[in-house]
């Protein structure tokens, strides 16, 4: 089982190396994240085409090994250590190592048992493994599946592929989340290290010690929820856009579109993020052809999923958008929603002083237009999230108390990266282009 688990992750690494070598040469972690999304999507397409989950589908990245491993000319060592080495950096690297190890022990101490992690995402994954498909009769039977049948399938497919490769085990499947956490931190480090070694190390530490990643019963690292995986794709899209806005590069815009598509395939909130990016592209007066390119890459990969979703049982919990005609009388709840949001932002037990700190940075430092665009994407996304509380049938305060902190987790890595770039200045961005 250990060998098969190792093979699974080597496959993901090989796929990432492949993208790194041929598409995004200056950004290994970004390539790994994009390949992770592509891996889930490609397995989905194979199963949607009626193929059963089997060894060849789960291990398709084996075919990429020769292309990925031969003749790599990039020099990772140049990217992964600051240009001006200092003794302090060794100390900070050691601190990150200790935090990572303790974080892994925290994640791997117990099998998954939190409500959504076990009852929604992992149950779907088990169904896929045991039925070798998501097209089985059980998957479409409202009495046989959990109460969110229309939740997207990226995470169940990823967990399911890992369990198919190894065994159905609620503990070892958490390694998938270790990998995703590693990519989140790696992307921030990689994007900052050439600009400022100090900013890179401190940003990674600042993100890695945010209490919400360890203390919350819903959505933390150990819970198996989809909130941290979706934050990986938000961060990926943000990094692509950081390159796109100053350069207008089509390939990075396509990458941003793909990252948005993967985020929507991870959680439905990804559509709100996609809408926010689109609005900001329009506000920034980008070319019409760019908008079409972004929409094509954000929408087309998800068309098979949207077509499948129509066939899935439709339960009342997921009917938020149907309440839009009733929104006017619900506007009276806006003050309550804002009050709860502010309380959460200042919740020291979840965030320390992260959000007030970041707000202060953005208020007191002059920012570049690129940072302002990305910040607008985050603010519009949060506004969309808050808007959904106007449509909920639950008690607003109760629902916000259990879900809003998780929604903030979606944008936390991207916000930390923007704050760091904001302080050090966004000069000479390392390009994601080939």
């Amino acid at each position, binding site marked *: 089982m250990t060998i098969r688990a190792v093979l699974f992750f080597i496959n993901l690494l090989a796929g990432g190396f492949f993208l790194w070598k041929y598409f995004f040469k200056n950004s290994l972690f970004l390539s790994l994240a994009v390949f992770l999304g592509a891996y889930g999507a490609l397995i989905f397409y194979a199963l949607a085409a009626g193929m059963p989950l089997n060894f060849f589908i789960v291990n398709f990245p084996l075919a990429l090994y020769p292309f990925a491993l031969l003749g790599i000319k990039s020099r990772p060592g140049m990217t992964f250590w600051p240009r001006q080495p200092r003794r302090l950096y060794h100390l900070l690297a050691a601190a990150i190592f200790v935090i990572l190890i*303790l*974080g892994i*022990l*925290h994640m*791997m*101490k*117990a*099998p998954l*048992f939190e*409500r*959504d992690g*076990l*009852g*929604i995402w*992992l*149950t779907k994954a*088990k*169904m896929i493994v*045991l039925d070798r498909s998501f097209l089985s009769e*059980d998957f479409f039977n409202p*009495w*046989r*599946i*959990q*109460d969110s049948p229309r939740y997207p399938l990226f995470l169940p497919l990823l967990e399911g592929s890992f369990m198919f490769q190894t065994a*159905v*085990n*609620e*503990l070892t499947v958490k390694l998938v989340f270790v990998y995703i956490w590693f990519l989140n931190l790696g992307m921030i480090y990689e994007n900052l290290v050439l600009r400022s070694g100090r900013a890179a190390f*401190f940003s990674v*530490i*600042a993100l890695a*010690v*945010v*209490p919400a990643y*360890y*203390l919350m019963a819903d959505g933390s690292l150990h819970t198996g929820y989809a909130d941290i995986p979706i934050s990986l794709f938000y961060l990926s899209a943000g990094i692509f856009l950081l390159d796109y806005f100053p350069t207008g590069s089509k390939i990075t815009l396509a990458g941003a579109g793909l990252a948005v598509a993967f985020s929507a395939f991870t959680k439905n909130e990804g559509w709100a993020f996609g809408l926010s990016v689109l609005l900001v592209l329009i506000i920034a007066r980008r070319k019409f052809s760019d908008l079409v390119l972004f929409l094509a890459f954000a929408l087309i990969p998800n068309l098979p999923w949207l077509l499948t979703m129509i066939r899935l049982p439709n*339960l009342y*919990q997921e009917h938020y958008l149907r309440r839009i005609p009733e929104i006017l009388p619900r506007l009276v709840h806006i003050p309550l929603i804002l009050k709860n949001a502010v309380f959460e932002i200042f919740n*020291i*037990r979840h965030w*320390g*002083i*992260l959000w007030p*700190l970041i707000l*202060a*940075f953005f208020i007191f430092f002059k920012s570049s237009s690129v940072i302002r665009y990305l910040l607008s994407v985050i603010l519009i996304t949060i506004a969309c999230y808050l808007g959904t509380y106007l449509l909920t049938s639950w008690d607003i305060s109760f629902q916000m108390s259990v879900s809003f902190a998780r929604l903030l987790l979606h944008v936390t890595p991207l916000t930390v990266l923007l704050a760091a770039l904001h*302080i050090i200045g966004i000069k000479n961005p390392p390009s994601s282009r080939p």
Partner: protein
Amino acid sequence: MRRFIFFLLAAQLIVSLYFITPVLYRSAGEFIKTSGMPDQTRKEMIYGSFYRTMVDYLENIPADENAVIIIPPREYAQYFWVLNYYFLPRRIYVIPDSLLGDEQLTNRLRIKHSLFTRSDGFFFDRFPPPPSREIK
């Protein structure tokens, strides 16, 4: 200004470490303590008496009979859905109380056992489930 930023950052790190250090310390201890345990023991520790009782009960249902868990409202049912795939070929369904009297449904699904209902006062993790009833 640089000093001020470092001061703020240091404050954030100290506050965060204040909250997470005890948790990470405890987790490291738990990891070491449980890492040698068999999977079954570890699951029982996590899922508690509920898991043990349910497993014992469900394993005694004949393989060709299905069971139903009645626990409205639906949004509280996640913990029970996870049992679906532990006990193949037995099938565990989760249905609302109102459908239990629907003979067409119970016959079609070959449901012979009902495990418990919320009206029996069962609440996850607090009390053991009441005795099961065979559907006539």
